[in-house]
């Protein structure tokens, strides 16, 4: 190891004296005018440590500079609450995660976040640290994490690189979540060539906390101690800092910094238990996890939200690699670290709990009321900044927006001419092709690698429409349900409608289980914001989602934006992934999806139109994408949800399953394969069998109702003006799905086609 030259540390004093020293701001991703703005704020050039901090805090990832102007719609269009109704949103956007009040003194916090690019570089570790990061966000709110979900997208299922990326991502999501003891209760898995070098790994975590136990990221009370605890700081994720290092340490020789962050789920599990014990004893005034931008972000955000100032002695930060320089320590993204603000009289108790759990904890600073964040290194002042300018006053861009040149052509190629199945045999072949296609096939190759039982409160998990968790064991039988959905093809065809369709599906999935949708989180995965066509997709999707949430009356509580998912000039399918959280008063009343009950009547709720734009059928059978996505009718979605929730509360239905990708046939097949019975389906009079079976019209669900409850269900639908149509029945003696007058498909054949696909591809 080469000896570092202390003399070359760039100090505040030095910076004031050498205003014209060239600095590598461009290499750090800062624009010229951004650099000028920093100089203006500081009234001098920044020190190299300050430059490091501004560069990460003002990056797209941390500052949301391209998306901010659009995202503010989520707040502006926040649904109005009826008079007298109390606001369920305890913490809204902007904090680590939103918090909603679920009654009985309990609150729930949830959020989804992307870890796309790291998962492409090193699939296992990238996905694992993605789970780790979102779990820390939830923990930071003061909550016990209680479940995770993962929405995954990969290139074509049979592409060689998918065989590298998918198994690694799945084992990473699994090993990290399993090792933390968090049940995985659902997610998504789909394939499209556009995700080939840009897989999407979106991880969601949900946690529960006492409604009066919310913790915030703020450094309050001058004299309070700033404690860094958890893992030591290593050189992870600081590729960018190398230009700074080389600028100030010419004689250093080759510096090795890890290209990949490795997660330590065990360290995180211990950190979770340690934090929960600390929260229970009420020992922190503020807390922040260290995620992207590590210490830079934690210190500035805590200081900016609190009394306003902080003094930090960077020498005290425990390091994994002693050769790190201040710029690197400030930018490091080492995992499994937290920062707490602790009043002096609580410090001893705080440190004792850390010792009990073998968690390394070090006081590295003090809260002040100077309005400045000051850092020292080897006795010299290397940072002196107003923290708000990093955390909140970053650049904001109104990026140019242009409808893609090919959008009209894409929408114009409606695909009405695609040859459709004409007889029973052809319909049967289409049914088999769809159920065995990678996007619709059995996902247990993936989901069997996830623990869904741990903690003992999982009421529903994949492949059910939504995951459901019981919140208390001795209190009221309250539960939450969660679903994540997105459809890149629909969004490509119409980003405004596509985002709403994703929202509608997640909302519908939650209601299908009997839970009342309450709040929304989202992860917006797009190409480069510098491409006006991508920016148009983005702005339309955000507008659609914000309008949709307003109409459905459920607020957006938080989310995440992932830009630059593209190869060369080709962006991924625009993919907003929407997570909806619902509550159910009595988990025992949840509606599962399996068709078991003999003689139960099958009803289709909602209406079917001839809608194949962006459909699985067009994709699987013809490899075609064009036309318009299914029509959105959020009023209808709301009606459907109300009926499903009421039916569950009144015990009217035995099973329910939403109709989405692949249409009615696929929905019925999934429900049938989940149970043990066969099904007889009748194509309604006057309906086109192909449209009836495979159209993807939104706003629909299939329910199974016993003869004795049939009249009550029909009455409920009539009263609600929701179209409902009897489409067949469950038959325990039958071991097939029979579409009367069209075709018969033995469940064994169906199951084989459905279950064989992923094992054949991935081993």
């Amino acid at each position, binding site marked *: 190891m080469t000896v570092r030259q202390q003399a070359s540390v760039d100090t505040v004093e030095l910076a004031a004296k050498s205003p014209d020293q060239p600095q590598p701001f461009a290499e750090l991703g800062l624009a010229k005018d951004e650099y000028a703005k920093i100089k203006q704020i500081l009234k001098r050039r920044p020190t190299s440590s300050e430059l490091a901090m501004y560069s990460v805090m003002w990056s797209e990832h941390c500052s949301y500079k391209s998306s901010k102007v659009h995202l503010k719609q989520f707040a502006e269009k926040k649904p109005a609450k009826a008079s007298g109704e109390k606001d369920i949103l305890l913490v809204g956007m902007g904090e680590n995660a939103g918090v909603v009040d679920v009654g009985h003194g309990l609150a729930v916090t949830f959020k989804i976040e992307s870890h796309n690019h790291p998962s492409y*570089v*090193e699939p296992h*570790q990238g996905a694992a640290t993605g789970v780790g990061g979102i779990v820390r966000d939830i923990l930071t709110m003061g909550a016990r994490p209680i479940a995770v979900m993962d929405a995954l997208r990969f290139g074509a299922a049979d592409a060689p690189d998918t065989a590298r990326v998918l198994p690694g991502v799945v084992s990473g999501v699994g090993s990290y979540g399993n090792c933390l003891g968090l049940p995985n209760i659902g997610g998504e898995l789909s394939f499209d060539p556009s995700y080939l070098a840009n897989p999407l790994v979106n991880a969601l975590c949900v946690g529960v906390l006492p409604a009066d136990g919310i913790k915030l990221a703020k450094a309050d009370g001058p004299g309070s101690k700033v404690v860094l605890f958890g*893992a030591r700081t*290593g*050189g*992870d994720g600081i590729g960018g800092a190398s230009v700074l290092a080389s600028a100030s340490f010419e004689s250093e020789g080759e510096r*090795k*910094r*890890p*290209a*990949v*962050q*490795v997660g*330590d789920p*065990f*360290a995180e599990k211990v950190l979770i238990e340690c934090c929960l014990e600390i929260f229970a004893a009420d020992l922190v005034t503020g807390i922040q996890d260290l995620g992207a931008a590590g210490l830079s972000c934690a210190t500035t955000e805590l200081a900016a939200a609190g009394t306003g100032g902080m003094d930090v002695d960077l020498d005290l930060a425990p390091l*994994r*690699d002693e050769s790190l320089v201040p710029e690197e320590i400030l930018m490091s993204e*080492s*995992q499994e670290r937290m920062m707490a603000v602790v009043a002096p009289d609580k410090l001893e108790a705080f440190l004792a709990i850390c010792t009990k759990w*073998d968690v390394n904890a070090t006081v590295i600073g003090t809260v002040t009321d100077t309005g400045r964040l000051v850092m020292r290194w080897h006795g010299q002042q290397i940072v002196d900044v107003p923290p708000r300018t990093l955390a909140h006053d970053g650049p904001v861009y109104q990026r140019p927006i242009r409808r893609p040149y090919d959008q009209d052509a894409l929408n114009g190629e409606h695909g009405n001419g695609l040859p459709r199945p004409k007889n029973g045999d052809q319909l049967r072949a289409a049914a088999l092709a769809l159920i065995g296609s990678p996007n619709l096939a059995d996902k247990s190759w993936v989901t069997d690698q996830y623990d869904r039982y741990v903690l003992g409160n999982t009421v529903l998990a994949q492949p059910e429409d939504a995951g459901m968790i019981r919140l208390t064991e001795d209190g009221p039988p309250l539960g939450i349900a969660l679903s994540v959905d997105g459809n890149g093809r629909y969004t490509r065809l119409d980003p405004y409608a596509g985002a709403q369709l994703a929202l509608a599906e997640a909302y519908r999935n939650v209601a299908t289980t009997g839970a009342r949708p309450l709040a929304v989180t989202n992860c917006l995965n797009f190409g480069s914001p510098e491409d006006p066509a991508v920016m148009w997709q983005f702005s339309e999707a955000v507008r659609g989602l914000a309008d949709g949430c307003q109409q459905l009356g459920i607020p957006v509580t938080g989310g995440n934006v992932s830009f630059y998912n593209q190869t060369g000039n080709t962006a991924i399918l625009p993919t907003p992934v929407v997570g909806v959280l619902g509550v159910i008063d009595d988990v025992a009343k949840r509606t599962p999806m399996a068709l078991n009950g003999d003689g139960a009547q099958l009803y289709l709720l909602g209406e079917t139109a001839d809608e194949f734009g962006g459909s699985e059928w067009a994709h699987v059978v013809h490899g075609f994408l064009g036309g318009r996505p299914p029509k959105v009718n959020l009023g209808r979605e709301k009606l459907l949800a109300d009926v499903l929730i009421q039916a569950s509360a009144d015990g009217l239905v035995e099973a329910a399953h939403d109709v989405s990708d692949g249409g009615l046939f696929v929905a019925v097949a999934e429900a049938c394969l989940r149970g043990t019975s066969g099904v007889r389906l009748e194509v309604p009079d006057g309906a086109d069998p192909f449209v009836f079976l495979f159209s993807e019209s939104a706003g629909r669900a299939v329910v199974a109702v016993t003869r004795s409850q049939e009249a009550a269900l029909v009455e409920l639908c009539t009263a609600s003006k929701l179209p409902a149509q009897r489409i067949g029945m469950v038959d325990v003696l039958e071991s097939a799905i029979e579409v009367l007058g069209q075709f018969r498909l033995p469940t064994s054949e169906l199951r084989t086609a459905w279950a064989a696909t992923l094992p054949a591809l991935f081993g």
Partner: protein
Amino acid sequence: MARVVVDVVMKPEILDPQGQAILGALTRLGIEGVNSVSQGKHFELDVDDDLDDDTLTTLADTLLANPVIEDFTIHR
């Protein structure tokens, strides 16, 4: 037939949680004098005598080690 050994270790700059955990256990066991531990993989292969070095290297690089986070050495 020849015996070839390939040892795979984490790149030094990459976090090695396993090594950390083992070091912690040593302390609890009261064993002193060990200052660091790292855990890697040890492969033993029986190969035909005419298997060339290039093939071996490819094999180590693609199957035995994950070059993104690991280094390997081949002992022939």
